């Protein structure tokens, strides 16, 4: 074994801290197990779940295959409905477009619907740099923003916080951002929700600009869809004069009827609800009703490059339900922050290294942040074979290969730090290709077994730090077989 087996950088290092934090582990365990059990029940209620899952997969695959056509159709539909479409190739361009749109309104604050896309591009920070303050209005997003934390979960960004922690955050921080928390606030869910409601209402009624993402965009009608539980999103989508929606290009469905599938699978997979409490849909602008200016910013930010990869492209089917996070035993122990991205958990482990490439330490470590147990694939409502993509990306990390970057085909070199591991793998392959060599090794291990240490030095500590080694037997099976069965193939 080699130094690189344990010398892995970012993910293991971050997880090292999380695993040793009992509060964090308790919070994550409680939350993921609760939602996991609920989801199982909600899914079991649907007799045609397998067909819905397959339909979702097919709709997404079809859309991705003809994405060019549907994007053009979407632009036409949105424009015809009175909206304006902007195209952003990367995060910087998207942020610049949004900042310019906000500045054009003369406003310096915006209210936001929870959105993965705007987190992905770091919109809040970019707006801050332009003197624009963005207020998150989703309850969990608000908690994260108030304490200048980072989200730890796609659906439940504050999953790593318990009620007591949230109360303290509200009492300490709310006053800095607007209406302070009520006197004598306790940690009961009802009181916490009421404190957030009062704090946010002030912002909803004042804001002239709203920023959203979207769960779906319907190409044929130009309709955008946001699925949420609290109603805060609907306030942001309907009260402001100007609405700016920032959405990844893969979020399209071809037709209105396709929503039928996802509006069943998404809520059951994510919040374990039969239907989510609020489904808001908007199509361009309407006279005297809702926002009078609507802008759609379509972001690529690595998606077209991901689409070029035949195995990896299935990650773009993701509808961000987060079911894979809630069943993942690795996520449960490591927490969302260890993934170093707004997309944590199994989906993050395959999405981030594709959107961002595998050049950085963290991105090269993400494909290994899984025991390949397959629970994520089993729950995925669009049947993304996450273990398959993980192994595919591992190959990219250790062996390099051809990838598409900014639309150009480039040949990647293997990531640094795997040379010793590669040598070990080659040596093992050689031994396995030569049964005699394997046998020699086995015999040597058996003969020296009295001298084997209980714990291993150096890189072997990764095993023996927490687990005992199995004793080496006095005789490998093949020697026993030869002794008792004559060792001739086919002869007994």
């Amino acid at each position, binding site marked *: 074994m080699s130094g690189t087996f344990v010398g892995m950088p970012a993910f293991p290092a971050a997880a090292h801290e999380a*695993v040793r934090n009992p509060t964090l582990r308790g919070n994550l365990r409680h939350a993921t197990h609760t939602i996991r059990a609920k989801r199982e029940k909600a899914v079991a209620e649907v007799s045609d779940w397998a067909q819905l899952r397959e339909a979702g997969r097919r709709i997404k695959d079809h859309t991705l295959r003809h994405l060019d056509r549907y994007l053009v159709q979407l632009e036409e539909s949105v424009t015809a409905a009175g909206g304006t479409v902007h195209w952003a190739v990367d995060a910087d361009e998207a942020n610049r477009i949004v900042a310019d749109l906000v500045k054009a309104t003369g406003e310096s604050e915006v209210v936001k619907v929870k959105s993965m896309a705007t987190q992905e591009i770091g919109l809040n920070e970019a707006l801050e740099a332009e003197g624009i303050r963005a207020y998150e209005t989703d309850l969990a997003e608000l908690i994260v923003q108030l304490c200048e934390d980072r989200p730890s979960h796609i659906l439940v960004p504050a999953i790593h916080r318990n009620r007591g922690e949230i109360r303290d955050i509200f009492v300490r921080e709310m006053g800095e951002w607007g209406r302070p928390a009520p006197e004598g606030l306790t940690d009961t869910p009802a009181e916490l929700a009421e404190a957030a409601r009062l704090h946010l209402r002030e912002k909803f009624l004042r804001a002239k600009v709203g920023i959203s993402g979207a769960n779906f965009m319907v190409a044929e009608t130009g309709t955008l869809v946001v699925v949420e539980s609290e109603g805060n999103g609907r306030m942001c989508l309907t009260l402001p004069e100007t609405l700016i929606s920032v959405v990844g290009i893969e979020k399209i469905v071809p037709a209105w009827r396709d929503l039928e599938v996802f509006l069943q699978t998404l809520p059951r997979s994510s919040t374990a609800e039969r239907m989510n409490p609020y489904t808001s849909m908007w199509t361009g602008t309407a006279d005297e009703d809702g926002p009078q200016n609507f802008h759609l910013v379509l972001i690529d930010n690595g998606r077209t490059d991901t689409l070029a990869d035949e195995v990896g492209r299935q990650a773009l089917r993701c509808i961000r339900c987060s079911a894979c996070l809630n069943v993942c035993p690795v996520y449960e122990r490591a927490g969302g922050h260890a993934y170093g991205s707004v997309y944590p958990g199994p989906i993050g482990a395959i999405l981030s290294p594709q959107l961002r490439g595998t050049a950085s330490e963290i991105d090269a470590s993400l494909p290994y942040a899984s025991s390949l*147990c397959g629970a994520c694939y089993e729950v995925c409502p669009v049947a993304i074979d996450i273990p398959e993509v993980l192994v595919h990306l591992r*190959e990219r990390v250790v062996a390099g290969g051809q990838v598409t970057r900014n639309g150009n085909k480039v040949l990647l070199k293997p990531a640094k730090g795997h040379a010793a591991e590669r040598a070990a793998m080659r040596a093992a392959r050689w031994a396995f290709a030569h049964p005699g060599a394997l046998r020699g090794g086995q015999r040597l291990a058996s003969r020296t077994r009295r001298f084997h240490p209980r714990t291993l030095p150096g890189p072997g500590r*990764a*095993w023996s730090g*927490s687990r*005992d080694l199995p004793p080496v037997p006095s005789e490998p*099976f*093949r020697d026993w077989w030869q002794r008792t069965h004559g060792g001739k193939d086919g002869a007994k």
Partner: protein
Amino acid sequence: MRVALFLTCVNDTLYPDTGRAVVKLLTRLGVEVDFPMAQTCCGQAHYNTGYRREAEPLARHFSDVFGEYEAIVTPSGSCGAMVRELYPRMGARARAEGRGSTLATALAAVVPKTYELTEFLVDVLGVTDVGAYYPHRVTYHPTCHGLRGLGLGDRPRRLLEAVKGLELVELPGADECCGFGGTFALKNSDVSAAMGADKVRNAESTGAEVLCAADNSCLMHIGGTMTRLRTGMRPVHIAEILASTEEEPAL
């Protein structure tokens, strides 16, 4: 019936008792067992760590060694899943990369003939009561690749329920991964160890003397954690339980 035993490199080197138990069990059930001496490793560790091309010669070697047999039986859910799930994928990738169909053809020959042990017993031999005797309180951990990769379902459970004297107790969180995951156990040893400790605590809570599974790699991780945590529980491969009889009880 004559079958080839694919024991796997881990069992061969570290757990020869499992191999002896499989031979004893199958022989008792009237199956003629061969152990092709040229066998080595299915290539799973290479493949799953990202060394797909390094795994190819091992897969080809496997098909050379086992191709002629009527059936190939392995006491490992994860090596079984490697052959059945991933060999077709390897063949298809080689073809897609313009390297012809020879690998795909060679691998396709062994894929449908490869059975995990409990699958072979229940589906091919059609038995659930193998005449075993094992007077212990046992909890069963369905390993991930057996459970989700091969879809073993309740086959191991049915086999265990038919064992005389055996008291089977439910393992809380049975479907959750034990944290082994091959090289994952080394690359992410902290998370792996935390998962293993939780698995062992769940097993302990059942009051069982023995944790049983159909894969020695997972048992190596779970067992190593058990002794480190001084639980007094023992990890035992299902083959050893099924091979145990009143005349020749397993220890």
